[in-house]
């Protein structure tokens, strides 16, 4: 009886261990494969003869003399001007994060200290924005933007992204500031600070964990966005994600699909680094909504 229970437990354990291993493999393999393959030539990565070619780079050696080639990256970044799209993304992401965090911290602090229960309404707004396909909102924005002649510029896109992102940031920072004890700024005010000084000298030093988490999510939203950027930006101002999409059409015809593969890998790299450094914050942000309700 005792032994039977023990074996069944270890069986379940073994099964769940296998499941986890399988999942980790499925989760990681595509990235590893594409990264490895991006240094090969097309006839290896999309090998008609044998998929093992992609591993050893048989044709890559034939064509370039070495098992690794950076021609895909050269093609994407230099020939296709991917660096320009990357700069655009940098601008969009930087300002989106900056503006949403500024509004988010000030607004979140004010709402948290005002006493009235705004939380529900902010949460609702955040929820509605989360629920709505962004494309439905964009379809509403598009015609007015054309009429006002502000279509296609980076600032327009930044404003739209900030607007979509704001309810979530506001809600997140609002609940974060609720957890910062009120006594802290009250005691500062008794010591002779005014409201603003209390915020500047007492609250700001303790708010960074919350701000970093909110900032990460703004970053991800702005960086990953396809719907808004593809609709609202003209071709000169494209950010990386729509640029990859337009790559697909042209490179497939020219037989230079490796450019697109290289571009995709380049886009993934920053996210990898981000997760590496901020894993704890991302996890806490993802679960914040769930645990606090």
């Amino acid at each position, binding site marked *: 009886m005792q032994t039977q229970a023990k074996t069944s437990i270890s069986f379940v354990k073994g099964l769940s261990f296998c499941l*986890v291993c399988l999942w980790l493999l499925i989760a990681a393999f595509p990235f590893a494969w*594409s990264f490895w393959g991006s240094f090969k030539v097309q006839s290896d990565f999309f090998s008609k003869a044998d*998929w093992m070619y992609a591993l050893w780079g048989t044709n890559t050696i034939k064509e370039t003399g070495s098992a690794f080639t950076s021609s895909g990256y050269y093609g994407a970044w230099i020939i296709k001007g991917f660096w320009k799209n990357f700069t655009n993304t940098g601008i969009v992401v930087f300002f989106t994060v900056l503006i949403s965090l500024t509004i988010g911290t000030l607004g979140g602090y004010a709402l948290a200290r005002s006493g009235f229960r705004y939380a529900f309404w902010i949460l609702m707004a955040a929820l509605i924005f989360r629920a709505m*396909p962004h494309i*439905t909102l964009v379809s509403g924005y598009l015609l007015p933007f054309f009429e006002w002649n502000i279509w296609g510029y980076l600032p327009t896109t930044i404003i739209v992204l900030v607007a979509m992102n704001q309810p979530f940031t506001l809600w997140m920072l609002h609940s974060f500031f609720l957890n910062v004890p009120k006594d802290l700024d009250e005691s500062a005010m008794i010591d002779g600070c005014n409201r603003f000084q209390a915020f500047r000298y007492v609250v700001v030093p303790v708010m960074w964990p919350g701000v970093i988490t909110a900032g990460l999510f703004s970053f991800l939203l702005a960086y990953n966005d396809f719907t808004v950027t593809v609709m609202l930006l003209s071709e000169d101002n494209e950010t990386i994600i729509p640029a990859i999409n337009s790559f697909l059409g042209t490179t497939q015809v020219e037989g230079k699909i490796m450019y697109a593969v290289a571009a995709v890998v380049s886009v*993934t790299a920053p996210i990898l680094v981000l*997760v590496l450094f901020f894993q704890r914050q991302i996890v806490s942000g993802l679960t914040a909504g769930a645990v606090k309700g």
Partner: protein
Amino acid sequence: MILFIALPIISAFVQSLFIQHEQVLIVSQNCGPFGCSEVTSIDFEKTIKLRQDAPLGKYNGINTYLNRSHLAFAEVGNAWSASETLVDFFNEVFNLPLYGALAFTLTYTAVVTPLVLILGFSIAIGVNGLPNIMKGPSIFVSLLPFLVTPLVGSLILFWMVDGDGIIGATIKLIFNDPDLSLKASTALTWTMLIVYGIWHTLPFSFIVFYAGLQTVPFETLEAALIDGATKWQRTIYVVIPHLVPLISFVTLMLLMDNFRVFEPIVSFSAEAHARSLSWIIYNDLRESGNPLYGSAGATSILTIIGIAFLLLPVLIRTWKDFKLKGH
């Protein structure tokens, strides 16, 4: 904030009531040695002027909602009276753009959501049982599919299932059918998109459940253990009831995210076999040179109504909870 949510919806609604201008035509007589013929040509100047004067187009009322690419009551009625069996009827109806997209969107949502919930939970339990040193790296790896840009993530998979890619080639080998292509048949395209959907959203449910597992009270588990509950029973009767609020939260999020599935269709170029509501709107707006604002607006409004139906029960419950907390 309200400005930015409400205005686009109103704008989309107003747009949906209009239809783009027809081109202004001139009929002129062209007389040659073999008699006269009437030639119809487009008066570009007048057309452009008309479009500039009234960019919204002509007022069309709710006709856009009723035409063939949207609710299509007339076509549905015809299909109903013309088709003999229910199967015929549904085949007919799902050929209409809106219903086809609705069918895919709902199937996708209905398949991906429960699978992601179950798999996410099992993996969370599995990771929870790992030795501490392996937990961090496995969470890191698990997060990747979720955080990577959907368009990019689906492209990576797309290249792998390509006929010459690693998975595509392997599948060909297994079924010994050199012409097999995942992109060619509707069923396989849907499966591919659904598999991608699971791959992409699984980490979210995994992370939330994993965090939830950390909060399961140890005393209750111990008590159950003393009472002789097996691991399986403890999971069913102690852990899952503790996680119910989390499960409803994750379900809500998944429903919302899956309902607006869009990017994978673009990067899998699967639009020939699978279209979602979002994709239809995108396509209308992308109509080269002359975006169909009216049509896109109408689909947007219909999508919003669909989401409202989907979320209404949850919203009502949240409102009740809020009132309870307030008093």
